[in-house]
């Protein structure tokens, strides 16, 4: 066991871990952030996706100790505050981009990284970007529409901000 400092959602957690502890387990068991889900623990399903330095990564395939010094974003930090939703979260609710909710954390973070990268993705681009995140419930169509809606919501927010400024 050794001390590891993890910066998650802007807060530095000092936790005591074995070297073998995955980032996913550290987030869930030691940082109290259980929104990161474990679906397969071998890198196929993408449910454990978190943002590491703004890139989507499978937290089951990263050792926690490797992430020291990185900026980690989890589902709990996606919205600016607990009382609001990020546009991508709002869009997944509105467009029914989820059913059981188990893939949703990883799906939202991957979607957010796409929208950071491409503010207006086509369905083909969305399929390609998101395909490392499996969903067993929805059949994907409503997730694609959710991401498109999120893009629209973000643009609307930006237009509103520009108007105000």
């Amino acid at each position, binding site marked *: 066991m050794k001390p590891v400092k993890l910066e998650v959602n802007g807060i530095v957690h000092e936790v005591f871990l*074995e070297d*073998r*502890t995955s980032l996913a387990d550290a987030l*869930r*068991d030691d940082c*109290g*952030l*259980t*929104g*990161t*889900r*474990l*679906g*397969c*623990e*071998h890198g*196929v*399903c993408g*449910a454990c996706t978190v943002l590491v330095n703004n890139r989507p990564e499978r937290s089951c395939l990263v050792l926690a100790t490797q992430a020291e010094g990185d900026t980690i974003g*989890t*589902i*709990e930090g*996606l*919205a600016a505050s*607990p009382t609001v*939703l990020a546009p991508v*979260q*709002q869009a*997944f*609710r*509105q*467009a*029914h981009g*989820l*059913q*059981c*909710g*188990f*893939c*949703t954390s990883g799906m*939202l973070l991957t979607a957010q990284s796409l929208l950071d990268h491409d503010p207006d993705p086509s*369905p083909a681009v*969305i*399929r*390609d970007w*998101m*395909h*490392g*995140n*499996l*969903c*067993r*419930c*929805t*059949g*994907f*169509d*409503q*997730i*694609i529409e959710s991401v498109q809606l999120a893009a629209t919501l973000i643009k609307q927010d930006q237009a509103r901000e520009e108007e105000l400024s």
Partner: protein
Amino acid sequence: MNSTIPSPRETNTHHAFGQPRETIESARHVRGGGKFVADLQLPGMLHVALLRSPKAHARIVEIDVRQARSLLGVHAILTGADVQKSTSSIYTMAQMHKPPLDIPLHALATDKVRHVGEPVVAVAARTRAIAEDAVRLIRVKYEDLPPVADADAALASGAPLVHENIAGNLIMHRQHDFGDAESVFKNADHVVRRKLRWPRQTGAALETFGCVAQWQPGVDELTFWSNHQSNVLLWTLGPTLGLPPHRIKGIACDIGGAFGAKFWQPRAMVICALFSRLTTRPVRYVEGRVENLVGGDNHGEDRTYDAELALDSSGKMLGLRFSVVEDYGSAFILGPINNAEPLAQATGPYDIAAFAFDFTAVLSNKVPQAAYRGFGGAAHNFMLERLVDAAAVELGLSAVAIRELNLLQPEQFPYRTATGNIYDSGDYPTALHRAVKESSYDLWRERQARAREVKDPTRAIGIGLVSCQERSVQSGTALWLMFDQEPGRNTTAAESASVRIDSQGSVRVALHSPSLGTPTETIAATVVAEELGVPADSVSVSRLDTSMAGPAMGPSASRMTVMLSGAVAGAVREVIEKMRPLAAHLLEANPEDLMWDPSRACFTIVGVPESSATLAAIAHLANGHALRLPAGCRSGLESTYTYDHPMSSMPHADGSDWGNYAPIVGHTVHVPVVEVDLQTGAVTFLDYFVMHDCGTVVNPDAVRGQVVGATVQGIATALTEELAFDEQARPQNTDFRSYFLPTFLDVPAIRLGHMETPSPFTYRGVKGIGEGGRMAAPAAVVSAIEDALSPYGVRINEVPVTPEKILKWLGNASAAQ
């Protein structure tokens, strides 16, 4: 006994149903706030890892746990001997059989292991990682026994026995003939026949099974948190653990998908319970993904059909019969449901008078079979639609024409099928015609014809078309006909709900069973909105644990929308009736002169709409103002309502009529269009259209999600998913690198057409929708691929249809020419 919801005094129009609505559940899930079983953090909790058998069939000679026991952090270790000392055999259908079958199942293997992945030793430790370390230190000596790898091997003479007291590995053999199929087949102009193979697949929900057990000494009560989709399992654990059932409490967690595959996982529940009794700590087990796929007690049907359809010279279907051999694996758990359920729609949407079957179930050295979305209906529909396609080819009819000729007509409902099950309602010809039109079926056929003229040797277009039933809302009667169960042991499965209105007029609903990841909370709130008139999003929904829950089976067999809406509406209407005298008191009117107006959420005097008593005013009076209440009234506004199956009937004792046991029948037509790469066998989709009818729609987005999601699962059933075993009964698909779940890039966008033929027998006409997509898509996709390959004479009689098989079939076809 069939249920009626107390009827309202007036007819409502829909105001909450059919509206787009964000789900209640999504509010927590988009924040990562769902509480799944793996998210529970209880003080002092121990974590379980299991040593699972690497062998399909072997005697356990010796287990050495000394090294594991001395590992720091290990609290307790259990072997089969420990389990056998402190529990009875797990309750399975073997005990329900009359007489009971000697197919014991213990949480850990005792004398021998009977499938790869069978739990042999359990370790409870401070962390899961330590528990796994300890498992690696355990040494088990096995003496190999010859394995039984499939049904053929099981039935071979001199086959090794999976259970020593089950001769010939034969669990049961049944024959039924409804409507004299034998003579119908003898006299028919045409008989088409197909032999079909359907291997195991599984729900593979992204969340694996898990549970936490907490024993409270002194109180002698056991609490389980788990992600079981149904309360049924909890009802059965008492006898196994030697506890009265009311000393077991089940708390449902959020469930990360189930698809039938979280219906029956008792082994780890028993293990966690024993560990908790030993240590008095909470004890958790969560399946790893390999454990889930290999040893999770969740594999779906595993069968071989030899099936025939009899027709007259015009193409009119006269009779259906098949023999089916089913491999239940190494124990007898849910098996018969997978065979009984499909018989509720044995003859599909077609008017077929005669039906017969010959059913054989065997034991093998595979993990016990349980349920996967459709309870065997996907395989059954596949069998029937393969026969219909075969008949069309033989008779020179188009896929559309043979269905037009045989579909049930709207005026035939309610329709009694050959087995006795009733179809409540439907309009199948309209569904077919709309599907043909809206899928641009004829345009695709033209495009296919042009492509065939070009004779491109590299690719071929195929168009599939199937019309399938989606039976919903099962009752239990089929089970005891399927095998020799004591009649009347279990007839129906009710669902309960509680509704309470507090002094502020706020509405709370308590559900009495889990949700497998579908929006049951939203459905409940929507029904409250529909009946009471309060906004759905103002309704607070929670779940009762099983200690105070009423009869409530929970989700399975597409029953929740019907059962839950019946239960919630019943409770709301009873609460409205409790409010009536209070409103009359407030309005100084005669109770009989009042009507509830859901558009304003108040009681009004009939004909005097301006004179009203609001929900808030009545609720205030009802909670804490006993001295102001009219005579005969008590404080409190609540009701718990148990809704029985809306339309079931008893079978005849002689088995000639199985009664009505899954009568709420949805319907769907699938039209996939595929392109097959003739050189690589790769299949890509050019289009996929689904016409569906699940009666009245509560939430259109949720319905779409169910239909599309199940269709995509069915596509994977058709193309990629299989739990295969080698000749030593070793599983070949053990993780997500070899069990092939589809991604965003592997499936098409699904176009939908909606129809609503309300059921006359359910609340507002709703029908089930959970399984239908998967019950139709495999048949549809295979139909499309066979259509593409029809110029080469290829006939497809199995799933999954892999590129490898396509090339083999094309090679065989060209070799034959």
